[in-house]
């Protein structure tokens, strides 16, 4: 059912989600700025070819589009997407000493947000019986690939969060 702003999500849950999205966006921007400053990897569009060869997956949010918003499906896709990004960020481990703490913080904040969504799905009784398991992650075989992967993952995550923010903003109402 296409839901207008009327839905059974608690306002405090939505406000927390909006705050968490902003926090993760800030973490992501920090990572992007450091990758640019430290390793001169500043433009994801220069890494499209590498992205293809590394096979970095993207997370769909089709159930969250404002034209065809499907709440349960949207929450599920939000959770799966965040869960995917947790895995991608973990695969970046060892990216470089300068970036390690930034990636760790980003991963912790994504994990917190994933937990919040899962808990809300449980409260609504729409959570799958089993927590999802992580699919195969790209294998970064060099320091450069981890850094380039960092740029691509951060850039994809920012656009994912942008779409998530729009639907959460819509659900939270004016």
């Amino acid at each position, binding site marked *: 059912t296409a839901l207008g702003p009327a839905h059974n999500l608690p306002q405090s849950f939505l406000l927390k989600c909006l*705050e968490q999205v*902003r926090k993760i966006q*800030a973490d992501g921007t920090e990572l992007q700025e450091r990758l640019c400053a430290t390793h001169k990897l500043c433009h994801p569009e220069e890494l499209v070819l590498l992205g293809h060869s590394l096979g970095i997956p993207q997370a769909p949010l089709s159930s969250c589009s404002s034209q065809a918003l499907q709440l349960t499906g949207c929450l599920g896709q939000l959770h799966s997407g965040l869960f995917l990004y947790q895995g991608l960020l973990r695969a970046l481990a060892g990216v470089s000493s300068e970036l390690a703490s930034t990636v760790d913080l980003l991963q912790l904040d994504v994990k917190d*947000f994933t937990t919040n969504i899962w*808990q809300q799905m449980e409260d609504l009784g729409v959570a799958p019986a089993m927590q999802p398991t992580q699919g195969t992650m790209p294998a970064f075989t060099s320091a450069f690939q981890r850094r380039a992967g960092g740029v691509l993952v951060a850039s994809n995550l920012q656009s994912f969060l942008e779409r998530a923010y729009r639907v959460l903003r819509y659900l939270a109402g004016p």
Partner: protein
Amino acid sequence: ECGRIISLSGPVIRLGDPITASCIVNHTCSHVGPKSEILWKLGTEFQAGKQHSLPDGTQESTITLPHLNHSWALLACYLRWGDSLQILDQAELQAGYPPAIPYNLTCLMNLTTNNLTCQWEPGPSTHLSTNFTLKSFVSWDNCQTQKDSIPDCMPEDGQNHCSIPRKHLQLYQNVGVWVEAENVLGTSVSPQLCLIPSDVVKLEPPTLWGLDPSPEVTPPQPGCLKLRWESWRPSLYMDQKCELRHRPQLGEASWALVSPLRPKTFQHELCGLLPSTAYTLQMRCMRWPLPGHWSDWSPSLELTTAQR
């Protein structure tokens, strides 16, 4: 070995409790006559004990000290040997109290260090080496049940605060936290706090700037000031409300308050003030509408209103 102390009531006792100790002198202690006198020395004071012989010729002296009024003392067992006094053995006596219940436990989430720092009042001194441990766990209900464990947080020696690192925290879930105090005489546990880290974020004050006239900034009207502000950068991801207070620098006027204000603005004209008067302005912010604490007031900004 000629003799030694057997302390009956433990090396560490409660301050004020009596201590009983006995010292035995083996009959095999060759240099010693059968009826040699055993003496006790507590600190610098000699005392006699009750001395008797055991069937095998061993001499035993027992002493009961009504109450130890020092938290630490040396108790020595002497033997009179000719006209000298010989130390046979020495015991360190410690006295103190079991730990009081730690109280006033409070926690703040620090966005710079990303730690949850908790502090508490340890209560009166126990005179004994007492270890404090900050215990906590993640809970998905209001701290009735544990969802995830968190490693114990051991404060640095003598400190009554401890910081739980970000990696053990879930910022938007409940954390049950309490303090355990332990020494040789016992253990005590503080009441448990149940809090959500992101609700106890410690906000640093916002920053206030005056706006100098420039192409983009027209000079303020008489009796007005132009300023801008931004809440503490690491907290910008939080929705916040802020309040501004101002008063003329001179005189004893009380603060006037302007509230609520957005956490960030590039140009704000504050009017209704006395013309050509020097004003002191301060601002503070708070996470809102989600729960939070007020930051401290920002350092003062001094601005003078335009002349009529």
